[in-house]
C-alpha cells in the first residue's frame, strides 16, 4: 500500500490528541467494519464488529482506539475461548445434535458435578489463573498449562522461553500468589530427520532447529527461575513441521487461606517487575489467526524476549508480600497486557488506570500500545494504601521495580487516562458479552476391522519401536533441565537403579506437608486421526493411570485439558474436536477427576502453495494427584532379580493409533476404546495394594505396547525378564501383534515379591489380572514367550542402547 493512499482508519479517525483517536464507526457498514478490524489487526469478525457498533449506539458515542483494542483483546479467541463457547451443530454419520457451548456442557458442568461429589477437594477452578486442589489442611496445590505455538513457530527460543515464563506468572498470579514448584513441557514437532525436500514451505524452521531452540528456551527460563522441569512428552508428525506445538505448564503451592482474593474500592493498583515497551503487541490477537509465510516477516513484534531474572525478582517480591499479608489481589500480565490484567482485576469493582504512571522502556508509545503491550515479567497487584511503604521496602530488597498504576473505586467502570484525558471508559460487564458463534461440525467413522498382521520377526519389530521418535528416551532434553532444584523431586523423570530409565509420573515433596504432589501428561495425536473419541478417552486414562501407578490416591486427582486444533471452520476438524471433548468429559466423570483449568489454541494451520496444512486435533491431558505418604511413591523400573511380574488390565485386539500400526502402515485399523468403569475399579485396587506395601514397581502400558513397557522396566539393569503372554487377560481376537505391541489402555505391569503375588491376585478377584512372569539373575535378556513359542529373546543392553540413543544422535 502506498503512503498516500487513504486507509479506512484515516477516513474515520478523529484525533483529539497525538496519543489516541476517536473512531467514527456508527455509520460504517458490516464490510467496512470488518475492513477496519483487519486493518487494525483486531481479529474480530464482521459479526463481532457489528456487535461492537451496537454497544456504542446504545451508549450514543463513538469508541476510542484504546477501547476497540481492549474489546478485541477481551473477545479474542485466546482470551475468551469463543469456539468452546459456540453453538455447534454436530453431525455424526448423518445424526445431528446441537451442542450449546462445549465448555459449559462437557467441561464446566461435568467438573462441577464432581466438585459436588467430593466436597472440599477442589478449592478453586476456572475463574482464577489456575485451579487449586487440597493437599492437606493447610496447603493447596495447583497446575496450569498453556500453549505458545505461534510465537515458537516464528522464534523457537524466545517463543518457548516466554511460554514458560508466562505460565509461571499464571501460578504467581493464582490466589494471592502461589509458589511455582515444578514445570512440565510437551512438544509436538516434525521429525528431526525430516528431509528438506519433504518440507512444503521454505519459510518455516526445520524441525531440528525448532526442537533445539524450543528446548533451550524452556531450559534458560526454567533453570534460571529455579523451578524444576520434571514432566514432559514429545510427539512427532509431519503436520507439526509447519505448526509446532509447545505446551508449557507449571504447578504451584499456596496456603489455603491465601486462595480467595477480592478487589475492594479504594485499593491501589500496582505493577511490579519489567517495564512496558513495544514488544509483544498483539500477541493475543496474533495467536487467534492462522500462520502463513508472511507471519515470519510481519509478526516478529508479537514475540517477546524473556528475562527470567526480572521474573525471579518479581516472584521473590510477590511471595514475600503474600507471606506478610500485603496482597489483596494479584494477577499476571499475559495476553492483552495491562488491559487484560487490569480489566480482570477491576471487572466488578471498577477503577482508574493512569497510563502516565506506567514505567516505559521505549519512547513514543501511544495509549493503546501501552495498555495492550505484552511486555514480559509484569505482575499487577491490588493492595491497601497503608501497605505501600512496606511493599516498596520489599521491592527495594529484591531489586524489582514497583509502580502505582491507579486505584479501584467501586464504580464498575474501567477508566483509563493518559496525558490528562480519558482515553477509555468501559462498563466492564458489557465487555464480556461477545456474540456467540454458530458453527458446524461433522464426523464419520474412519476405522474398520483389519486382519491382524503376521509377526515374522517380533524382536526386530520391538527394536524398531524402541528407536521410534515417539518412544525413544527424552534424556538429551531432560538433562538440559534442572529437574531437582528446590530439593523436592522424589520421583524424577529418569530414575531406577541405573538413573536413566523412564518413569510414569513425577512426584514432588511439598515443604511443610507430609503429603506429596504428583504430575503426569498424556498426549496421543496419532489416535485422534481416525478416532478422536478413543484419543480423548485414552489420554484421560493414561494420565490418571500414570498418577495412580506412581502412588497417587485415585480419588484425589484433577486434570487439565489443553487443546490444539487446526481450522475450526473446517467441519471435520471441528467434528474431531467435539468427539474428543465428549470423550474427556466421559473419562473425567467416570474417574471423578475434574477439570480445574484448561486452554485451547485454534488456527494451528499453515497456508502452503498446495493448500493449508492442519495439525491433527491434539489434546494434552495433564494431571496432578496427591500422594499421601512418601512410602507410596512407586517407580517404573524393575528393582529385584527374584520378583514376579503381573499385569493389570485387559489386552484388546485393536492396533489402531499404535506406534506399531504407524510403522507397519496399518491404515484405519480400529483404535482401542477405554472401559472406564473396569479401569477405575482396577486403579482403586492397585492403590490398596500399594498402600499395603505389595508393589515393588509399576509401569503403565502405553506407546509401543506391552513389549516396550517390559523393556523399559528392565532398563534399570537389575534383572533379566522371563514373561509368558499365554495367560494374560485378553480379547479372543487379540493376536500376538496386539499382545506385544497393541496399546490397549488401562494396563499396568507390576513387580511384586513372590510371597505377595497371591495376596495381590486375591485383591483383583473379578478384575482383569494375571501373573506374567518373573525377574531373574540368570541372564540379562528380555525373554517373551507365548506358551512354548519364543517371541522375543534379546539382551536388555542392546534394546536399551537403541532407546537411549534414538534422539541423542539428532540432538
Amino acid at each position, binding site marked *: 500500500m502506498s503512503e498516500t493512499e487513504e486507509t479506512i482508519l484515516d477516513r474515520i479517525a478523529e484525533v483529539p490528541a497525538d496519543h489516541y483517536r476517536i473512531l467514527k464507526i456508527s455509520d460504517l457498514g458490516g464490510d467496512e467494519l470488518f475492513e477496519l478490524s483487519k486493518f487494525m489487526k483486531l481479529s474480530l469478525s464482521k459479526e463481532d464488529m457489528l456487535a461492537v457498533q451496537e454497544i456504542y449506539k446504545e451508549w450514543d458515542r463513538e469508541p476510542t482506539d484504546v477501547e476497540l483494542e481492549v474489546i478485541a483483546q477481551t473477545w479474542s479467541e485466546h482470551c475468551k475461548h469463543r469456539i468452546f463457547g459456540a453453538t455447534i451443530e454436530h453431525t455424526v454419520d448423518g445424526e445431528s445434535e446441537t451442542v450449546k457451548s462445549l465448555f459449559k456442557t462437557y467441561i464446566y458442568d461435568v467438573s462441577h458435578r464432581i466438585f459436588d461429589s467430593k466436597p472440599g477437594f477442589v478449592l478453586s477452578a476456572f475463574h482464577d489463573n489456575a485451579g487449586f486442589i487440597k493437599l492437606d489442611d493447610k496447603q493447596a496445590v495447583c497446575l496450569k498449562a498453556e500453549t505458545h505455538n505461534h510465537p515458537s513457530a516464528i522464534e523457537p527460543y524466545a517463543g518457548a522461553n516466554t511460554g514458560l515464563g508466562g505460565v509461571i506468572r499464571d501460578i504467581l498470579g493464582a490466589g494471592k500468589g502461589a509458589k511455582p514448584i515444578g514445570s512440565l513441557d510437551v512438544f509436538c514437532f516434525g521429525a528431526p530427520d525430516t528431509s528438506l525436500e519433504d518440507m512444503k514451505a521454505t519459510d518455516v524452521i526445520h524441525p531440528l532447529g525448532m526442537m533445539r531452540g524450543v528446548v533451550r528456551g524452556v*531450559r534458560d527460563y526454567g*533453570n*534460571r*527461575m*529455579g523451578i524444576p522441569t520434571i514432566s514432559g512428552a514429545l510427539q512427532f508428525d509431519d503436520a507439526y513441521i509447519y505448526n509446532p506445538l509447545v505446551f508449557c505448564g507449571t504447578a504451584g503451592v499456596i496456603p489455603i487461606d491465601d486462595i480467595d482474593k477480592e478487589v475492594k474500592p479504594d485499593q491501589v493498583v500496582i505493577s511490579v517487575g519489567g517495564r512496558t515497551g513495544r514488544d509483544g503487541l498483539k500477541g493475543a490477537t496474533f495467536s487467534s489467526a492462522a500462520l502463513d509465510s508472511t507471519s515470519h516477516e510481519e509478526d516478529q513484534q508479537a514475540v517477546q524476549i524473556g*528475562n*527470567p*531474572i526480572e521474573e*525471579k*525478582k518479581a516472584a*521473590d517480591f510477590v511471595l514475600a508480600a503474600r507471606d506478610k499479608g500485603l496482597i489483596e489481589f494479584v494477577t499476571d500480565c499475559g495476553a492483552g497486557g495491562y488491559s487484560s490484567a487490569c480489566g480482570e482485576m477491576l471487572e466488578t469493582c471498577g477503577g482508574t488506570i493512569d497510563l502516565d504512571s506506567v514505567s516505559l522502556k521505549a519512547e513514543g508509545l501511544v495509549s493503546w500500545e501501552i495498555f495492550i503491550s505484552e511486555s514480559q515479567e509484569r505482575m499487577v497487584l491490588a493492595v491497601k494504601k497503608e501497605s505501600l511503604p512496606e511493599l516498596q521496602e520489599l521491592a*527495594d*530488597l*529484591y*531489586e524489582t521495580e514497583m509502580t502505582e498504576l491507579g486505584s479501584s473505586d467501586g464504580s464498575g467502570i474501567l477508566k483509563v487516562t493518559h496525558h490528562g484525558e480519558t482515553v477509555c471508559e468501559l462498563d466492564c460487564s458489557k465487555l464480556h458479552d461477545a456474540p456467540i458463534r454458530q458453527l458446524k461440525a461433522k464426523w464419520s467413522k474412519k476405522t474398520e476391522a483389519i486382519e491382524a498382521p503376521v509377526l515374522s520377526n517380533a524382536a526386530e519389530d520391538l527394536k524398531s519401536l524402541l528407536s521410534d521418535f515417539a518412544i525413544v528416551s527424552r534424556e538429551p532434553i*531432560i*538433562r*538440559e*533441565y*534442572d*529437574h*531437582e*532444584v*528446590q*530439593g*523436592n*523431586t*522424589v520421583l*524424577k523423570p*529418569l*530414575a*531406577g*537403579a541405573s*538413573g536413566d530409565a523412564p518413569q510414569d509420573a513425577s512426584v514432588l515433596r511439598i*515443604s511443610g506437608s507430609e503429603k506429596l504432589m504428583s504430575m503426569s501428561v498424556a498426549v496421543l495425536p496419532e489416535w485422534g486421526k481416525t478416532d478422536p473419541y478413543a484419543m480423548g478417552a485414552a489420554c484421560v486414562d493414561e494420565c490418571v493411570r500414570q498418577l495412580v501407578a506412581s502412588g497417587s490416591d485415585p480419588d484425589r486427582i484433577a486434570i487439565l485439558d489443553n487443546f490444539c486444533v487446526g481450522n475450526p471452520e473446517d467441519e471435520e476438524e471441528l467434528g474431531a474436536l467435539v468427539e474428543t471433548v465428549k470423550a474427556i468429559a466421559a473419562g473425567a466423570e467416570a474417574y471423578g477427576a475434574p477439570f480445574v483449568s484448561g486452554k485451547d489454541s485454534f488456527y494451528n494451520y499453515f497456508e502452503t502453495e498446495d493448500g493449508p496444512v492442519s495439525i491433527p486435533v491434539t489434546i494434552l491431558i495433564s494431571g496432578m494427584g496427591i500422594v499421601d505418604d*512418601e512410602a507410596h*511413591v512407586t*517407580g517404573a*523400573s524393575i*528393582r529385584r532379580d527374584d520378583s514376579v511380574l503381573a499385569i493389570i488390565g485387559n489386552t484388546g485386539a485393536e492396533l489402531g493409533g499404535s506406534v506399531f500400526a504407524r510403522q507397519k502402515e496399518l491404515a484405519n485399523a480400529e483404535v482401542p476404546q477405554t472401559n472406564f468403569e473396569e479401569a477405575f475399579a482396577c486403579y482403586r485396587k492397585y492403590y490398596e495394594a500399594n498402600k499395603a506395601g505389595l508393589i515393588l*514397581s509399576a509401569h503403565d502400558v502405553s506407546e509401543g505396547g506391552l513389549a516396550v513397557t517390559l523393556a523399559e522396566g528392565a532398563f534399570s539393569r537389575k534383572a533379566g525378564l522371563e514373561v509368558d503372554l499365554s495367560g494374560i487377560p485378553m480379547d479372543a481376537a487379540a493376536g500376538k501383534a496386539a499382545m506385544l505391541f497393541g496399546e490397549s489402555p488401562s494396563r499396568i505391569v507390576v513387580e511384586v515379591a513372590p510371597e505377595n503375588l497371591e495376596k495381590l491376585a486375591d485383591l483383583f478377584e473379578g478384575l482383569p489380572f494375571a501373573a506374567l512372569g518373573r525377574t531373574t539373575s540368570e541372564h540379562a535378556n528380555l525373554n517373551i514367550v507365548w506358551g512354548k513359542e519364543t517371541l522375543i529373546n534379546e539382551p536388555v543392553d542392546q534394546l536399551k542402547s537403541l532407546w537411549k540413543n534414538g534422539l541423542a544422535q539428532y540432538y
Partner: protein
Amino acid sequence: MEERPCAVLLKFPGTNCDEETARALEEVGFVTEVIPISALKATSLVGVSLVVMPGGFSYGDYVQSGRFAKLVTEQKIGDTLTEFRDNGGYLLGICNGFQILTQLGLLPDGSLVENASGRYQCHWVKLDKQCAKSPFLTHLPDQFEFPIAHAEGRLVTGTPEEAKAYRESGAAALTYTDEVNGSFEQIAGLQDESGRVFGLMPHPERFMNSADHYDPDWESGVDGEASRGSGYYLFRSLYESVTSSN
C-alpha cells in the same frame, strides 16, 4: 539450651537454591538467615559462624558466572569475607556459590567455565573424597554420589600442573570419579588452605534423604540412619566442625 550456630545465606537476584540450602542447614542444627544482597552490610556477619553462597544464576550469569556477584559483593562489603575467614569463619559455596567464591579469590586460583559438552548437565555423579581432613567431609565415605546441575562447572587452572598440584595438596578436596564436564583433574570441589572455605559444583542440599536418590533401593549403609542421604553428612560434618571450633 545450647546456642545454635548461625549461618547466613547470601541471596543475589537469580539465586534460587537458598530455601532448600537453608532447610538442609536447619536440619543439622544451624539457625539460618537469608540476606538479599541489597541488604548486606559488613556488620551483617557479626556473630555468624558460616556464610553460604547457594546455587542459582546470580544476575543471570550472562557474563562469566559469578562475575557480577563478585563485583557487587565487593562493592557492598569490601573484603569483609576475607576477614570473616581469617577470624575463624566458615564459607561454603555450592554451584553458582562455588563460582562466586572462586571469582572472589577465596579459593585456589581457577575458573569455572562452560562444560566440555557445551550443554547444561543435570544428573548424578560419583565423587571421590580426596581430603579426609576437610571439615566439610569428615562424615562422608571415600566415595559417594551427589547430583549436579550446571552449564559452567569445568574447572580450569592456568596450567594443567596447577590442577595436579591441587590434587596432591588436597586443595582439590573433591573429584569426580568419571569424566563429567572436562574439569582439569576431574576436580569437583576446592578448599582453601585454612580448610574453612569450601566450594563444590554438586548439590549436597538435594540429597538430604535416601529417597532423594534416583535408585529407590539406595541406602546410606549407616546403622539406624537408613533414611539419610549423603548430603546430610556433608552438612553434619560442617556443623560439628563449626560447633567444635567455637
